Protein backbone atom coordinates (compact mmCIF):
# COMPACT_ATOMS: atom_id res chain seq x y z
CA UNK A 1 0.00 0.00 0.00
CA UNK A 2 2.73 2.39 1.07
CA UNK A 3 4.68 1.48 -2.04
CA UNK A 4 1.77 2.10 -4.36
CA UNK A 5 1.21 5.49 -2.76
CA UNK A 6 4.84 6.52 -3.01
CA UNK A 7 5.06 5.19 -6.56
CA UNK A 8 1.97 7.20 -7.44
CA UNK A 9 3.34 10.42 -6.00
CA UNK A 10 6.72 9.89 -7.63
CA UNK A 11 5.00 9.38 -10.99
CA UNK A 12 2.99 12.60 -10.88
CA UNK A 13 5.70 14.83 -12.40
CA UNK A 14 5.76 12.65 -15.51
CA UNK A 15 2.32 13.86 -16.43
CA UNK A 16 2.82 17.45 -15.28
CA UNK A 17 3.18 19.94 -18.07
CA UNK A 18 5.24 22.42 -16.03
CA UNK A 19 9.02 21.99 -16.25
CA UNK A 20 9.48 23.91 -13.01
CA UNK A 21 7.36 21.41 -11.10
CA UNK A 22 9.37 18.62 -12.67
CA UNK A 23 12.51 20.44 -11.67
CA UNK A 24 11.42 20.62 -8.04
CA UNK A 25 10.57 16.92 -8.08
CA UNK A 26 13.97 16.14 -9.60
CA UNK A 27 15.84 18.20 -7.00
CA UNK A 28 13.88 16.59 -4.20
CA UNK A 29 14.61 13.10 -5.49
CA UNK A 30 18.25 14.06 -5.90
CA UNK A 31 18.48 15.27 -2.30
CA UNK A 32 16.73 12.12 -1.15
CA UNK A 33 19.21 10.01 -3.09
CA UNK A 34 22.27 11.75 -1.63
CA UNK A 35 20.69 11.65 1.82
CA UNK A 36 20.12 7.93 1.41
CA UNK A 37 23.79 7.48 0.49
CA UNK A 38 24.81 9.32 3.67
CA UNK A 39 22.27 7.27 5.59
CA UNK A 40 23.90 3.99 4.59
CA UNK A 41 27.04 4.94 6.51
CA UNK A 42 25.81 7.67 8.85
CA UNK A 43 22.43 6.25 9.77
CA UNK A 44 22.72 2.49 9.58
CA UNK A 45 26.36 2.48 10.60
CA UNK A 46 26.36 5.47 12.95
CA UNK A 47 29.36 6.85 11.04
CA UNK A 48 28.55 10.54 11.32
CA UNK A 49 30.35 12.03 8.36
CA UNK A 50 30.72 15.79 7.90
CA UNK A 51 32.53 15.37 4.61
CA UNK A 52 30.42 13.23 2.31
CA UNK A 53 30.94 15.77 -0.45
CA UNK A 54 34.31 14.09 -0.91
CA UNK A 55 32.46 11.22 -2.61
CA UNK A 56 30.06 13.38 -4.56
CA UNK A 57 32.92 15.49 -5.84
CA UNK A 58 35.12 12.51 -6.66
CA UNK A 59 32.31 11.13 -8.77
CA UNK A 60 31.59 14.45 -10.45
CA UNK A 61 35.25 14.89 -11.39
CA UNK A 62 35.58 11.26 -12.49
CA UNK A 63 32.68 11.63 -14.89
CA UNK A 64 33.77 15.04 -16.16
CA UNK A 65 37.44 14.15 -16.62
CA UNK A 66 36.75 10.83 -18.34
CA UNK A 67 34.46 12.60 -20.72
CA UNK A 68 36.36 15.79 -21.47
CA UNK A 69 39.90 14.40 -21.43
CA UNK A 70 39.45 10.85 -22.64
CA UNK A 71 36.21 11.04 -24.59
CA UNK A 72 34.58 8.31 -22.54
CA UNK A 73 30.82 8.07 -22.82
CA UNK A 74 29.23 9.70 -19.73
CA UNK A 75 27.06 6.65 -19.04
CA UNK A 76 30.31 4.79 -18.43
CA UNK A 77 31.04 7.55 -15.93
CA UNK A 78 28.40 6.09 -13.61
CA UNK A 79 30.11 2.76 -12.86
CA UNK A 80 33.52 4.46 -13.00
CA UNK A 81 32.39 6.98 -10.40
CA UNK A 82 30.96 4.20 -8.27
CA UNK A 83 34.36 2.54 -8.34
CA UNK A 84 36.31 5.71 -7.58
CA UNK A 85 33.90 6.78 -4.82
CA UNK A 86 34.08 3.30 -3.35
CA UNK A 87 37.87 3.36 -3.37
CA UNK A 88 37.97 6.80 -1.76
CA UNK A 89 35.54 5.55 0.89
CA UNK A 90 37.56 2.41 1.47
CA UNK A 91 40.75 4.43 1.79
CA UNK A 92 39.33 7.02 4.19
CA UNK A 93 37.54 4.29 6.12
CA UNK A 94 40.50 1.95 6.44
CA UNK A 95 42.80 4.76 7.57
CA UNK A 96 40.33 6.28 10.05
CA UNK A 97 38.88 3.11 11.52
CA UNK A 98 42.25 1.42 11.88
CA UNK A 99 43.37 4.46 13.84
CA UNK A 100 40.27 3.97 15.99
CA UNK A 101 38.60 7.28 15.08
CA UNK A 102 34.98 7.42 16.14
CA UNK A 103 32.16 9.85 16.74
CA UNK A 104 33.21 13.49 16.57
CA UNK A 105 36.76 12.65 15.53
CA UNK A 106 35.54 10.70 12.56
CA UNK A 107 33.20 13.55 11.64
CA UNK A 108 36.08 16.02 11.70
CA UNK A 109 38.48 13.82 9.78
CA UNK A 110 35.97 13.36 6.96
CA UNK A 111 35.61 17.13 6.83
CA UNK A 112 39.38 17.44 6.54
CA UNK A 113 39.53 14.85 3.75
CA UNK A 114 36.88 16.75 1.81
CA UNK A 115 38.92 19.91 2.29
CA UNK A 116 42.08 18.18 1.03
CA UNK A 117 40.22 17.09 -2.09
CA UNK A 118 38.81 20.56 -2.55
CA UNK A 119 42.20 22.22 -2.30
CA UNK A 120 43.76 19.63 -4.62
CA UNK A 121 41.06 20.01 -7.25
CA UNK A 122 41.44 23.77 -6.89
CA UNK A 123 45.15 23.69 -7.67
CA UNK A 124 45.86 20.74 -9.96
CA UNK A 125 46.01 21.28 -13.66
CA UNK A 126 44.45 17.84 -14.18
CA UNK A 127 41.21 19.09 -12.64
CA UNK A 128 41.56 22.53 -14.23
CA UNK A 129 41.98 24.16 -10.85
CA UNK A 130 39.64 26.91 -9.80
CA UNK A 131 38.33 27.29 -13.37
CA UNK A 132 36.39 24.09 -12.99
CA UNK A 133 35.33 21.82 -15.82
CA UNK A 134 32.68 22.73 -18.33
CA UNK A 135 31.04 19.74 -19.97
CA UNK A 136 30.26 20.42 -23.62
CA UNK A 137 26.59 20.73 -24.41
CA UNK A 138 25.43 17.91 -26.66
CA UNK A 139 21.89 16.89 -25.91
CA UNK A 140 21.16 13.23 -26.64
CA UNK A 141 20.17 10.26 -24.53
CA UNK A 142 23.31 8.46 -25.71
CA UNK A 143 25.32 11.37 -24.31
CA UNK A 144 23.39 11.38 -20.99
CA UNK A 145 22.06 14.89 -21.61
CA UNK A 146 18.33 15.38 -21.79
CA UNK A 147 16.28 18.23 -23.14
CA UNK A 148 13.41 17.14 -20.95
CA UNK A 149 13.92 17.32 -17.19
CA UNK A 150 11.57 14.38 -16.82
CA UNK A 151 14.26 12.10 -18.21
CA UNK A 152 16.78 13.36 -15.66
CA UNK A 153 14.13 12.90 -13.01
CA UNK A 154 13.68 9.30 -14.10
CA UNK A 155 17.42 8.64 -13.86
CA UNK A 156 17.52 10.14 -10.37
CA UNK A 157 14.53 8.05 -9.34
CA UNK A 158 16.35 4.92 -10.47
CA UNK A 159 19.40 5.90 -8.42
CA UNK A 160 17.18 6.64 -5.43
CA UNK A 161 15.57 3.24 -5.84
CA UNK A 162 18.98 1.56 -5.94
CA UNK A 163 20.23 3.35 -2.81
CA UNK A 164 16.96 2.68 -1.03
CA UNK A 165 17.18 -0.96 -2.10
CA UNK A 166 20.58 -1.10 -0.41
CA UNK A 167 19.00 0.43 2.69
CA UNK A 168 16.22 -2.15 2.70
CA UNK A 169 18.78 -4.90 2.29
CA UNK A 170 20.66 -3.51 5.29
CA UNK A 171 17.56 -3.88 7.44
CA UNK A 172 17.31 -7.53 6.48
CA UNK A 173 20.66 -9.16 5.86
CA UNK A 174 23.82 -10.11 7.70
CA UNK A 175 25.81 -7.08 6.66
CA UNK A 176 23.16 -4.73 7.99
CA UNK A 177 22.89 -6.64 11.26
CA UNK A 178 26.62 -6.42 11.74
CA UNK A 179 26.64 -2.74 10.89
CA UNK A 180 23.87 -2.08 13.41
CA UNK A 181 25.79 -4.09 16.01
CA UNK A 182 28.92 -2.03 15.43
CA UNK A 183 26.87 1.17 15.64
CA UNK A 184 25.30 0.16 18.93
CA UNK A 185 28.32 -1.29 20.70
CA UNK A 186 31.70 -2.02 19.14
CA UNK A 187 33.07 -4.22 21.93
CA UNK A 188 30.01 -6.41 22.01
CA UNK A 189 30.08 -6.70 18.22
CA UNK A 190 33.73 -7.76 18.23
CA UNK A 191 33.02 -10.34 20.95
CA UNK A 192 30.45 -11.90 18.62
CA UNK A 193 32.92 -12.20 15.78
CA UNK A 194 32.22 -8.99 13.87
CA UNK A 195 35.29 -7.47 12.22
CA UNK A 196 34.65 -3.85 13.17
CA UNK A 197 37.14 -2.14 10.88
CA UNK A 198 36.07 -4.17 7.89
CA UNK A 199 32.37 -3.69 8.50
CA UNK A 200 32.64 0.07 8.85
CA UNK A 201 35.06 0.45 5.96
CA UNK A 202 32.77 -1.53 3.76
CA UNK A 203 29.78 0.63 4.69
CA UNK A 204 31.69 3.82 3.97
CA UNK A 205 32.89 2.47 0.63
CA UNK A 206 29.38 1.47 -0.43
CA UNK A 207 27.96 4.79 0.70
CA UNK A 208 30.76 6.64 -1.09
CA UNK A 209 30.41 4.68 -4.32
CA UNK A 210 26.70 5.43 -4.53
CA UNK A 211 27.13 9.12 -3.68
CA UNK A 212 29.78 9.42 -6.38
CA UNK A 213 27.23 8.41 -9.02
CA UNK A 214 25.21 11.44 -7.92
CA UNK A 215 28.18 13.57 -8.91
CA UNK A 216 28.02 12.28 -12.47
CA UNK A 217 24.31 13.03 -12.73
CA UNK A 218 24.97 16.54 -11.42
CA UNK A 219 27.65 17.13 -14.05
CA UNK A 220 25.45 15.88 -16.87
CA UNK A 221 22.56 18.06 -15.73
CA UNK A 222 24.31 21.36 -15.03
CA UNK A 223 27.29 20.85 -17.37
CA UNK A 224 29.71 22.52 -15.03
CA UNK A 225 31.57 21.55 -11.86
CA UNK A 226 34.21 23.30 -9.80
CA UNK A 227 35.99 22.60 -6.51
CA UNK A 228 33.35 24.10 -4.24
CA UNK A 229 30.43 22.58 -6.13
CA UNK A 230 32.14 19.23 -5.87
CA UNK A 231 33.74 19.25 -2.45
CA UNK A 232 32.13 22.19 -0.62
CA UNK A 233 30.84 21.79 2.92
CA UNK A 234 27.29 22.77 1.92
CA UNK A 235 26.86 19.52 0.04
CA UNK A 236 28.12 17.47 2.98
CA UNK A 237 25.84 19.28 5.37
CA UNK A 238 22.82 18.94 3.13
CA UNK A 239 23.32 15.17 2.84
CA UNK A 240 23.53 14.89 6.59
CA UNK A 241 20.56 17.19 7.23
CA UNK A 242 18.29 15.32 4.88
CA UNK A 243 19.02 12.00 6.57
CA UNK A 244 19.00 13.32 10.12
CA UNK A 245 15.80 15.31 9.76
CA UNK A 246 13.97 12.50 8.04
CA UNK A 247 15.32 9.80 10.31
CA UNK A 248 18.83 8.36 10.23
CA UNK A 249 18.97 4.59 10.07
CA UNK A 250 15.52 4.25 8.56
CA UNK A 251 14.72 3.45 4.94
CA UNK A 252 12.19 6.25 4.47
CA UNK A 253 14.03 8.87 6.47
CA UNK A 254 16.01 10.51 3.64
CA UNK A 255 12.94 10.63 1.40
CA UNK A 256 10.92 12.37 4.12
CA UNK A 257 13.86 14.61 4.93
CA UNK A 258 14.28 15.67 1.31
CA UNK A 259 10.60 16.45 0.93
CA UNK A 260 10.66 18.56 4.11
CA UNK A 261 13.83 20.30 2.98
CA UNK A 262 12.42 21.33 -0.37
CA UNK A 263 9.00 22.24 0.96
CA UNK A 264 10.70 24.44 3.56
CA UNK A 265 12.89 25.93 0.86
CA UNK A 266 10.03 26.77 -1.46
CA UNK A 267 7.66 28.01 1.21
CA UNK A 268 10.26 30.17 2.94
CA UNK A 269 11.47 31.51 -0.39
CA UNK A 270 7.92 32.62 -1.08
CA UNK A 271 8.01 34.76 2.06
CA UNK A 272 11.60 35.87 2.34
CA UNK A 273 13.74 35.44 -0.71
CA UNK A 274 17.03 36.48 0.91
CA UNK A 275 19.79 33.92 0.32
CA UNK A 276 20.55 32.12 3.55
CA UNK A 277 17.05 32.28 4.93
CA UNK A 278 15.96 28.81 3.82
CA UNK A 279 19.15 27.04 4.99
CA UNK A 280 18.80 28.85 8.28
CA UNK A 281 15.36 27.35 8.66
CA UNK A 282 16.81 23.87 7.99
CA UNK A 283 19.31 24.48 10.75
CA UNK A 284 16.51 25.33 13.13
CA UNK A 285 14.57 22.27 12.01
CA UNK A 286 17.67 20.14 12.70
CA UNK A 287 17.95 21.53 16.24
CA UNK A 288 14.28 20.89 16.88
CA UNK A 289 14.56 17.36 15.51
CA UNK A 290 17.58 16.56 17.69
CA UNK A 291 15.74 17.97 20.69
CA UNK A 292 12.39 16.32 20.34
CA UNK A 293 12.64 13.57 17.71
CA UNK A 294 16.07 11.95 17.94
CA UNK A 295 14.87 9.30 15.48
CA UNK A 296 13.81 11.91 12.96
CA UNK A 297 10.42 12.17 11.30
CA UNK A 298 10.46 8.49 10.34
CA UNK A 299 10.93 7.74 14.04
CA UNK A 300 7.45 9.11 14.67
CA UNK A 301 6.05 6.54 12.30
CA UNK A 302 8.04 3.74 13.97
CA UNK A 303 6.87 4.89 17.39
CA UNK A 304 3.30 4.83 16.25
CA UNK A 305 3.77 1.23 15.17
CA UNK A 306 5.73 0.41 18.31
CA UNK A 307 8.79 -1.09 16.66
CA UNK A 308 12.28 -0.49 18.05
CA UNK A 309 15.02 0.71 15.77
CA UNK A 310 16.84 3.78 14.54
CA UNK A 311 20.37 4.98 14.87
CA UNK A 312 22.41 5.67 17.95
CA UNK A 313 25.86 7.06 18.44
CA UNK A 314 28.87 5.59 16.65
Amino acid at each position, binding site marked *: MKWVLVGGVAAVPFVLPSQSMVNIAMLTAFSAFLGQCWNIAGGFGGLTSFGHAVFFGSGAYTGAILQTRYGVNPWVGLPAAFLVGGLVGAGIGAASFRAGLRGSYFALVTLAFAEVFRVLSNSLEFTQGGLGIAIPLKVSAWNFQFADRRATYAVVLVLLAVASGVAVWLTKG*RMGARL*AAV*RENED*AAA*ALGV*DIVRTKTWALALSGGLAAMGGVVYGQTYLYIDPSIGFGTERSVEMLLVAMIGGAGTVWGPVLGAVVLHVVADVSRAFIATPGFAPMVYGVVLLVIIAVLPQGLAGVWAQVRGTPGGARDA
Partner: protein
Amino acid sequence: MLEVRGLSKRFGGLQAVDDVALDVPQGRIVALIGPNGAGKTTSFAMIAGFVRPDAGRIVFEGREVTGARADQIAALGMVRTFQITQPFAGLSVAENIRVGAFLRTADAAEAMAQARAVGAALGLGAMLDRPAAALTVAGRKRLEVARALATRPRMLLLDEVMAGLNPSEIHEIVAMIRGIREGGVTVLLIEHIMQAVAALADDVYVLAQGAVIAQGTPRAIADDPAVIEAYLGRGAAARLAAHA
Protein backbone atom coordinates in the same frame (compact mmCIF):
# COMPACT_ATOMS: atom_id res chain seq x y z
CA MET B 1 41.52 -26.91 25.11
CA LEU B 2 42.73 -23.55 26.43
CA GLU B 3 46.25 -23.14 27.65
CA VAL B 4 47.51 -19.90 29.15
CA ARG B 5 51.12 -19.34 30.21
CA GLY B 6 52.91 -16.40 31.77
CA LEU B 7 50.07 -13.96 31.07
CA SER B 8 50.89 -10.46 32.36
CA LYS B 9 49.47 -6.97 32.07
CA ARG B 10 50.46 -3.71 33.69
CA PHE B 11 48.31 -0.55 33.83
CA GLY B 12 50.59 2.33 34.73
CA GLY B 13 52.00 1.45 38.13
CA LEU B 14 49.59 -1.40 38.71
CA GLN B 15 50.46 -5.01 37.86
CA ALA B 16 46.89 -6.04 37.09
CA VAL B 17 47.78 -9.55 35.90
CA ASP B 18 51.04 -11.17 36.91
CA ASP B 19 52.40 -14.32 35.26
CA VAL B 20 49.10 -16.21 35.18
CA ALA B 21 48.97 -19.82 33.96
CA LEU B 22 45.67 -21.64 33.34
CA ASP B 23 44.53 -24.87 31.74
CA VAL B 24 40.97 -25.53 30.71
CA PRO B 25 40.48 -29.10 29.48
CA GLN B 26 37.80 -29.83 26.90
CA GLY B 27 34.30 -30.43 28.26
CA ARG B 28 35.02 -29.04 31.71
CA ILE B 29 33.74 -26.11 33.70
CA VAL B 30 36.64 -24.22 35.22
CA ALA B 31 36.13 -21.30 37.60
CA LEU B 32 38.31 -18.26 38.11
CA ILE B 33 37.67 -16.62 41.48
CA GLY B 34 39.29 -13.93 43.56
CA PRO B 35 38.56 -10.65 45.30
CA ASN B 36 37.55 -7.53 43.40
CA GLY B 37 40.39 -6.03 41.43
CA ALA B 38 42.29 -9.32 41.34
CA GLY B 39 42.68 -9.15 37.59
CA LYS B 40 40.07 -11.67 36.51
CA THR B 41 38.28 -9.50 33.96
CA THR B 42 41.60 -8.26 32.59
CA SER B 43 42.70 -11.88 32.12
CA PHE B 44 39.50 -12.58 30.19
CA ALA B 45 40.00 -9.50 28.09
CA MET B 46 43.48 -10.67 27.12
CA ILE B 47 42.40 -14.25 26.42
CA ALA B 48 39.53 -13.04 24.24
CA GLY B 49 41.67 -10.56 22.29
CA PHE B 50 40.36 -7.27 23.72
CA VAL B 51 43.53 -6.28 25.53
CA ARG B 52 47.02 -6.97 24.28
CA PRO B 53 49.06 -8.81 26.92
CA ASP B 54 52.48 -7.44 27.91
CA ALA B 55 53.77 -10.99 28.07
CA GLY B 56 52.51 -14.54 27.87
CA ARG B 57 51.06 -17.07 25.47
CA ILE B 58 47.48 -18.05 24.85
CA VAL B 59 46.87 -21.31 23.00
CA PHE B 60 43.34 -22.29 22.00
CA GLU B 61 42.79 -25.79 20.61
CA GLY B 62 46.48 -26.10 19.80
CA ARG B 63 46.60 -22.79 17.95
CA GLU B 64 48.39 -19.77 19.32
CA VAL B 65 45.98 -16.83 19.50
CA THR B 66 48.10 -14.37 21.48
CA GLY B 67 47.60 -10.90 19.98
CA ALA B 68 44.81 -12.00 17.64
CA ARG B 69 41.81 -9.69 17.30
CA ALA B 70 38.67 -10.36 19.33
CA ASP B 71 36.58 -11.14 16.26
CA GLN B 72 39.17 -13.60 14.98
CA ILE B 73 39.18 -15.43 18.30
CA ALA B 74 35.38 -15.47 18.35
CA ALA B 75 35.41 -16.95 14.86
CA LEU B 76 37.72 -19.73 16.13
CA GLY B 77 35.03 -20.59 18.67
CA MET B 78 36.04 -18.86 21.91
CA VAL B 79 33.51 -16.21 22.94
CA ARG B 80 33.34 -14.01 26.03
CA THR B 81 30.52 -12.25 27.84
CA PHE B 82 30.89 -8.91 29.64
CA GLN B 83 30.65 -8.40 33.39
CA ILE B 84 29.18 -4.98 32.68
CA THR B 85 26.55 -6.04 30.18
CA GLN B 86 26.88 -4.55 26.71
CA PRO B 87 23.53 -4.90 24.96
CA PHE B 88 22.90 -3.43 21.52
CA ALA B 89 20.44 -1.10 23.21
CA GLY B 90 18.61 0.11 20.12
CA LEU B 91 17.94 -3.39 18.77
CA SER B 92 15.35 -5.92 19.87
CA VAL B 93 16.40 -8.87 22.02
CA ALA B 94 16.05 -11.25 19.08
CA GLU B 95 18.12 -8.94 16.86
CA ASN B 96 20.80 -8.84 19.54
CA ILE B 97 21.05 -12.61 19.59
CA ARG B 98 20.89 -12.79 15.80
CA VAL B 99 24.18 -10.88 15.54
CA GLY B 100 25.77 -13.89 17.25
CA ALA B 101 23.96 -16.36 15.00
CA PHE B 102 25.24 -14.56 11.90
CA LEU B 103 28.75 -15.70 12.76
CA ARG B 104 27.90 -19.19 11.49
CA THR B 105 25.28 -18.53 8.84
CA ALA B 106 24.73 -15.80 6.25
CA ASP B 107 21.05 -16.68 5.82
CA ALA B 108 18.89 -14.09 7.57
CA ALA B 109 15.88 -16.32 8.14
CA GLU B 110 18.00 -19.14 9.49
CA ALA B 111 19.91 -16.76 11.78
CA MET B 112 16.66 -15.34 13.12
CA ALA B 113 15.23 -18.81 13.75
CA GLN B 114 18.36 -19.83 15.62
CA ALA B 115 18.37 -16.60 17.60
CA ARG B 116 14.77 -17.07 18.69
CA ALA B 117 15.44 -20.69 19.62
CA VAL B 118 18.49 -19.80 21.73
CA GLY B 119 16.64 -16.89 23.33
CA ALA B 120 13.66 -19.07 24.19
CA ALA B 121 15.91 -21.78 25.62
CA LEU B 122 17.50 -19.21 27.90
CA GLY B 123 14.22 -17.90 29.19
CA LEU B 124 14.01 -14.78 27.06
CA GLY B 125 11.05 -16.04 25.02
CA ALA B 126 8.63 -13.38 26.18
CA MET B 127 11.10 -10.57 25.57
CA LEU B 128 12.33 -11.49 22.08
CA ASP B 129 10.59 -8.66 20.27
CA ARG B 130 11.12 -6.02 22.94
CA PRO B 131 14.03 -3.56 22.81
CA ALA B 132 17.06 -4.84 24.67
CA ALA B 133 17.08 -1.61 26.67
CA ALA B 134 13.87 -2.79 28.33
CA LEU B 135 15.51 -5.86 29.94
CA THR B 136 16.06 -6.24 33.69
CA VAL B 137 19.54 -6.95 35.07
CA ALA B 138 18.85 -10.67 35.04
CA GLY B 139 17.51 -10.37 31.50
CA ARG B 140 20.65 -8.55 30.35
CA LYS B 141 22.86 -11.26 31.82
CA ARG B 142 20.85 -13.87 30.00
CA LEU B 143 21.11 -11.86 26.82
CA GLU B 144 24.91 -11.79 27.17
CA VAL B 145 24.96 -15.59 27.40
CA ALA B 146 22.36 -16.03 24.66
CA ARG B 147 24.30 -13.88 22.17
CA ALA B 148 27.49 -15.76 22.93
CA LEU B 149 25.78 -19.14 22.62
CA ALA B 150 24.22 -18.18 19.32
CA THR B 151 27.70 -18.04 17.82
CA ARG B 152 27.90 -21.82 18.45
CA PRO B 153 31.10 -21.47 20.46
CA ARG B 154 33.36 -24.35 21.43
CA MET B 155 34.33 -22.47 24.53
CA LEU B 156 32.55 -19.80 26.56
CA LEU B 157 34.15 -17.24 28.86
CA LEU B 158 31.45 -16.12 31.32
CA ASP B 159 32.28 -13.04 33.40
CA GLU B 160 30.12 -12.84 36.56
CA VAL B 161 26.86 -13.78 34.89
CA MET B 162 25.25 -14.28 38.32
CA ALA B 163 26.21 -11.03 40.01
CA GLY B 164 23.19 -8.99 40.98
CA LEU B 165 20.72 -11.84 40.53
CA ASN B 166 18.38 -13.21 43.21
CA PRO B 167 18.74 -16.79 44.50
CA SER B 168 16.06 -18.27 42.27
CA GLU B 169 17.58 -16.58 39.21
CA ILE B 170 21.00 -17.91 40.24
CA HIS B 171 19.52 -21.35 40.49
CA GLU B 172 18.20 -21.07 36.96
CA ILE B 173 21.49 -19.78 35.58
CA VAL B 174 23.41 -22.62 37.26
CA ALA B 175 21.10 -25.08 35.55
CA MET B 176 21.56 -23.17 32.31
CA ILE B 177 25.35 -23.37 32.49
CA ARG B 178 25.17 -27.09 33.19
CA GLY B 179 23.00 -27.41 30.14
CA ILE B 180 25.57 -25.51 28.10
CA ARG B 181 28.31 -27.88 29.16
CA GLU B 182 26.09 -30.86 28.35
CA GLY B 183 25.72 -29.35 24.91
CA GLY B 184 29.46 -29.88 24.44
CA VAL B 185 30.69 -26.37 25.21
CA THR B 186 33.70 -25.93 27.48
CA VAL B 187 33.25 -23.18 30.07
CA LEU B 188 35.63 -20.86 31.89
CA LEU B 189 33.74 -18.69 34.33
CA ILE B 190 34.48 -15.85 36.68
CA GLU B 191 32.23 -15.96 39.70
CA HIS B 192 31.92 -14.52 43.17
CA ILE B 193 29.10 -16.66 44.42
CA MET B 194 30.88 -19.63 45.99
CA GLN B 195 27.81 -21.87 46.14
CA ALA B 196 27.47 -21.57 42.41
CA VAL B 197 31.17 -22.29 41.91
CA ALA B 198 30.93 -25.33 44.16
CA ALA B 199 27.88 -26.55 42.29
CA LEU B 200 29.38 -26.09 38.84
CA ALA B 201 33.15 -26.12 38.66
CA ASP B 202 35.38 -29.11 38.17
CA ASP B 203 38.44 -27.06 38.85
CA VAL B 204 39.05 -23.65 40.45
CA TYR B 205 41.81 -21.08 40.07
CA VAL B 206 42.15 -18.36 42.69
CA LEU B 207 43.55 -15.03 41.63
CA ALA B 208 44.71 -12.34 44.06
CA GLN B 209 46.54 -9.15 43.13
CA GLY B 210 47.06 -10.43 39.64
CA ALA B 211 48.65 -13.78 40.51
CA VAL B 212 47.29 -17.32 40.82
CA ILE B 213 47.58 -18.19 44.51
CA ALA B 214 45.78 -21.52 44.54
CA GLN B 215 44.27 -24.12 42.26
CA GLY B 216 42.22 -27.24 42.92
CA THR B 217 38.73 -28.67 43.32
CA PRO B 218 36.12 -26.37 44.89
CA ARG B 219 36.31 -28.42 48.09
CA ALA B 220 40.09 -28.15 48.41
CA ILE B 221 40.03 -24.44 47.60
CA ALA B 222 37.44 -23.66 50.24
CA ASP B 223 39.77 -25.04 52.91
CA ASP B 224 42.97 -23.45 51.61
CA PRO B 225 44.31 -20.93 54.17
CA ALA B 226 45.93 -18.82 51.44
CA VAL B 227 42.57 -18.37 49.77
CA ILE B 228 40.80 -17.48 53.00
CA GLU B 229 43.46 -14.85 53.69
CA ALA B 230 43.17 -13.44 50.21
CA TYR B 231 39.45 -12.87 50.72
CA LEU B 232 39.26 -11.99 54.39
CA GLY B 233 42.64 -10.45 55.12
CA ARG B 234 45.87 -11.41 56.78
CA GLY B 235 45.54 -13.78 59.80
CA ALA B 236 41.95 -14.65 58.99
CA ALA B 237 42.71 -18.32 58.41
CA ALA B 238 44.31 -18.66 61.82
CA ARG B 239 41.40 -16.87 63.50
CA LEU B 240 38.88 -19.10 61.75
CA ALA B 241 40.85 -22.21 62.75
CA ALA B 242 40.95 -21.03 66.38
CA HIS B 243 37.18 -20.65 66.36
CA ALA B 244 36.59 -24.09 64.94
